[in-house]
């Protein structure tokens, strides 16, 4: 195409602005690609854990979180006829709890769909490994969040492309007039701009896909490193063709569409008007009634979606961003007037000039305002999404693990007596308790019996999962009720039993359970059920108080010790001394420093949440680039005005400050609008996540005041920082050259 060289030349002429616009597209496409590529990899990893080594076998069992009724032999026949299943075999275990239904899937059958078909036929069940159905649910939430960020990011990209081309059309009004005068058709002018947009969005999309793949790899490695389940997730990150095609199409389409409309307007420029008219005085569309009405309607729709807490909150959030873009030109003058007294007090000599310049080009100021609003709103929204999760996790972990605790374990071979002696003689140790285990038998099956020191029981994390009734009607006990049960455990022969043991014996809360012990068969009253397992022993567990345990089980192994220190600072030192003195490769001792454990848990949560922060940053960066872009345009547009100001006596410092104050004013307005939009969006998304039961946090605003203050100060400082470059350019303008500028 003949005009490509001209498009390329124009892009090169405004290299910085082209680069800024390019970056916006890169970030948008990267986020969108990663959003769709990552869940596929997570899903594949989850399916690998569920499928056996041969890749086609999947084992179903009753499980603690699955059905309350045992599996039955006739279910194999029911499953065999289903699409995607080659064979189903029922393998009876020693108890109904041990029954397994093994499915052999036809090669390449969609695992989740097959499991859903099986569920429809036989009811719920547990899956050995990570249940791919559940992985999918979590993925959908993750994907929805990512897509939201990706969409907002691309919206920002489209917005910046559109701004760039509208500005380019303005700046090149004269050039376009010349082209039209020497015979360029309207269509050729449109094509010229469209080719530029295509070049930008093409390069941006390619860069975005590369960055997106890198981003997906980094994020997935983070997820793999955090998966500390019995079935850790692993896997590579192959290129994801559907995500690739979707991001490619969206990136190019958005770029070209955003470039086309300003191009069409530019094409209609009458050649004579364009040659004659001073670009500064070019009429720009004012805030039309249509734009206002449209903005109002979009706002109402988005608020209705967001406040309803429906699963569509991401769409509602995106619409609110769109309405902010539509309404900002209308909101700018009243907001600016409201802030005027404040700014007049801070910058008495510059406020009039700044206001005159800004309100003479309300479209440009509104563009900057929209860019900043979206950037700030995203930061606020992410803060609102992440803070409640981090705060609730931190609180829970802090409550569970007192800082002064240290635990040492040696499950298999037991702790040496010398270690107990050593710990008890240390002056930093306030108190210690011993943990024993032994094997008992119930209904002919082995049961792991564990002692608990009732003084420390409530501190154990596992006791957060105490249930008051039965597996079928599971309800978690609150901390007080759990503490009461643990306190009362030594009151006669009482036991807390696991769900698996409850299913084996049929005993619920208040029932008696018979255990064969070295001292004969003893009967214990079930005080509570617990959803717990020990990786070393399996699911059948009974917890007894230490005195009862020691009275009944003479063959106990001392497998662990809880150590309470006089100050948390000793934990690390004592821990490493125990490791050095007593742990050997043959008889290793696990040392669980509670401070480290707590930090690791909080760290894991924060790392998980950091994915969202990275995403927010990926959108916030283009916002700042957008600010830089529009401020640079402001200086370009006002070159002649700046020349006049300098001619009538404004010094370089005043000129510089004028640009900085304008950036601060726009930043303040962006912060106010962005704060409102961000809080509303985070409320909506939190509500819908809570409705989906995807996260622990309750719906709410969730934006901490301290976080908002940090964002405000940081945002304004960055606004001022970003304005330094155009401010410097403005201050360096030579008066005569600036006056000559058209």
């Amino acid at each position: 195409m003949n005009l490509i060289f001209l498009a390329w030349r124009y892009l090169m002429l405004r290299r910085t602005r082209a680069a800024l616009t390019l970056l916006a597209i890169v970030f948008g496409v990267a986020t969108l690609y990663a959003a769709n590529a990552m869940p596929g990899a997570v899903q594949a990893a989850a399916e690998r854990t569920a499928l056996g080594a041969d890749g086609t076998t999947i084992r179903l069992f009753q499980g603690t979180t699955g059905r309350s009724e045992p599996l039955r032999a006739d279910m194999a026949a029911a499953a065999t006829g289903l699409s995607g299943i080659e064979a189903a075999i029922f393998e009876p275990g020693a108890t109904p709890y041990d029954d397994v239904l093994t499915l052999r899937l036809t090669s390449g059958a969609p695992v989740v769909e097959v499991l859903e078909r099986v569920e429809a036929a036989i009811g719920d069940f547990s899956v050995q490994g990570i249940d791919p159905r559940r992985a999918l649910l979590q993925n959908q939430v993750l994907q929805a969040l990512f897509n939201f960020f990706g969409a907002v990011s691309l919206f920002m990209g489209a917005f910046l492309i559109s701004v760039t081309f509208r500005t380019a059309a303005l700046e090149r009004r004269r050039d376009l007039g010349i082209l039209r005068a020497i015979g360029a058709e309207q269509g050729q002018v449109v094509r010229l701009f469209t080719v530029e947009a295509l070049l930008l969005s093409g390069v941006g999309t390619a860069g975005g896909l590369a960055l997106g793949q890198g981003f997906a790899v980094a994020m997935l490695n983070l997820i793999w490193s955090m998966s500390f389940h019995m079935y850790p997730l692993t896997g590579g990150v192959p290129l994801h063709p559907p995500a690739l095609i979707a991001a490619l199409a969206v990136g190019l389409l958005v770029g070209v569409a955003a470039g086309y409309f300003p191009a069409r307007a530019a094409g209609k420029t009458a050649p004579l008007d364009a040659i004659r008219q001073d670009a500064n005085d070019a009429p720009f569309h004012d805030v039309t009634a249509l734009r206002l009405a449209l903005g109002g309607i979009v706002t109402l729709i988005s608020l209705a979606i967001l406040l309803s807490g429906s699963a569509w909150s991401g769409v509602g959030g995106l619409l609110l961003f769109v309405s902010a873009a539509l309404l900002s030109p209308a909101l700018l003058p009243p907001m600016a007037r409201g802030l005027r007294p404040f700014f007049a007090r801070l910058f008495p000599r510059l406020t009039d000039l700044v206001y005159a310049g800004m309100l003479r080009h309300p479209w440009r100021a509104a563009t900057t305002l929209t860019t900043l609003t979206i950037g700030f709103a995203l930061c606020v929204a992410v803060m609102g999404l992440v803070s409640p999760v981090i705060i609730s996790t931190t609180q829970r972990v802090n409550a569970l693990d007192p800082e002064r605790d240290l635990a040492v374990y040696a499950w298999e071979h037991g702790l040496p007596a010398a270690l107990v002696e050593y710990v008890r003689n240390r002056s930093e140790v306030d108190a210690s308790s011993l943990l024993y285990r032994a094997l008992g038998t119930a209904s002919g099956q082995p049961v792991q019996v564990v002692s608990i020191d009732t003084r420390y029981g409530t501190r154990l994390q596992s006791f957060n999962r105490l249930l008051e009734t039965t597996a079928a009607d599971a309800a978690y006990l609150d901390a007080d009720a759990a503490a009461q049960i643990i306190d009362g455990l030594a009151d006669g022969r009482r036991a807390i039993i696991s769900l698996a043991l409850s299913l084996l014996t049929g005993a619920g809360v208040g029932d008696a359970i018979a255990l064969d012990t070295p001292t004969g068969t003893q009967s214990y009253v079930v005080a509570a059920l617990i959803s717990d397992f020990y990786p070393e022993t399996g699911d059948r567990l009974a917890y007894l108080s230490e005195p009862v345990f020691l009275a009944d089980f003479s063959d106990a192994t001392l497998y662990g010790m809880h150590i309470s220190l006089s100050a948390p600072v000793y934990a690390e030192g004592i821990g490493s001394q125990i490791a050095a003195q007593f742990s050997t490769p043959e008889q290793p001792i696990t040392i669980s420093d509670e401070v480290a454990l707590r930090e690791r848990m909080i760290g894991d949560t924060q790392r998980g949440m950091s994915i969202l922060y990275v995403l927010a940053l990926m959108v916030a960066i283009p916002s700042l680039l957008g600010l830089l872009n529009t401020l640079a345009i402001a200086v370009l547009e006002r070159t002649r005005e700046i020349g006049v100001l300098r001619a009538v006596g404004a010094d370089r410092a005043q000129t510089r400050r004028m640009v900085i104050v304008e950036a601060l004013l726009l930043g303040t307005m962006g912060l106010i609008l962005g704060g409102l939009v961000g809080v509303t969006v985070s409320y909506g998304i939190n509500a819908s996540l809570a409705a989906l039961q995807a996260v622990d946090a309750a719906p709410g605003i969730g934006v901490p005041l301290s976080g908002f203050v940090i964002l405000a100060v940081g945002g304004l400082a960055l606004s001022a920082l970003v304005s330094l470059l155009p401010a410097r350019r403005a201050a360096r303008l030579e008066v005569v050259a600036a006056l000559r500028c058209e």
Partner: protein
Amino acid sequence: MQAKEIVRVEGLTRTYGSGETAFTALNQVSLSVSQGEMVAVMGPSGSGKSTLLHLIGGLDRPTAGSVQIDGALLNDLNDKALSALRRRRIGFIFQTYNLLPALTARENVAMPLILDGIRRSTALDRAGEVLAAVGLQDRADYRPTALSGGQQQRVGIARALVIQPALILADEPTGALDSETGQDIIRLIRQLATRQRQTIMLVTHDARVAAHAARIINLKDGSIVDDNRLKSRQEAYDAVPVG
């Protein structure tokens, strides 16, 4: 044999604005220009010189009246056809050169050809030849900002001539140049156009520039006050209104 008629203007009127603020820049102007003629359009500021030139060049649409260029009635042409006419039959030379700053001199000259779909390399070759004809072969790859005013106007002339137009319209082509360079430029335009029997209409304030023309049309308040066909340079000087 009678010379071919290149420009035919009848009852041409252009009014800007409406109601009380309406301003008639050109009022019922009729004229005819033949192939190979060099016509200078003169008159005081606001007399409608540039408006006439813009209407003849299809850069503006008349309020009333008609313009025919080389047999094509401009009033009947849509934007696409008008653009094609501009890039194939009319060469514009502007007072402020109006070169595209993003392009080199050669690319600027090649632009009308490129817009017309001619292969870029061919267009650039032809542009190089025309630049050589205006004496700028060693400045072909310079951007406009690196050229002097006179050199920029030579590029403007080359751009107008590269399409071998039937009609060259020059709006104050020497207005931004010193008088000596201005004379060089006008001689160059005349010399190159004469070779191809091209028609030139130029708007000027400068009697020395107008003196190169064989016909001088004087406008005042949007109307033609006189239209002189001249035989000598002295007659040309005499035809220039004083004051």
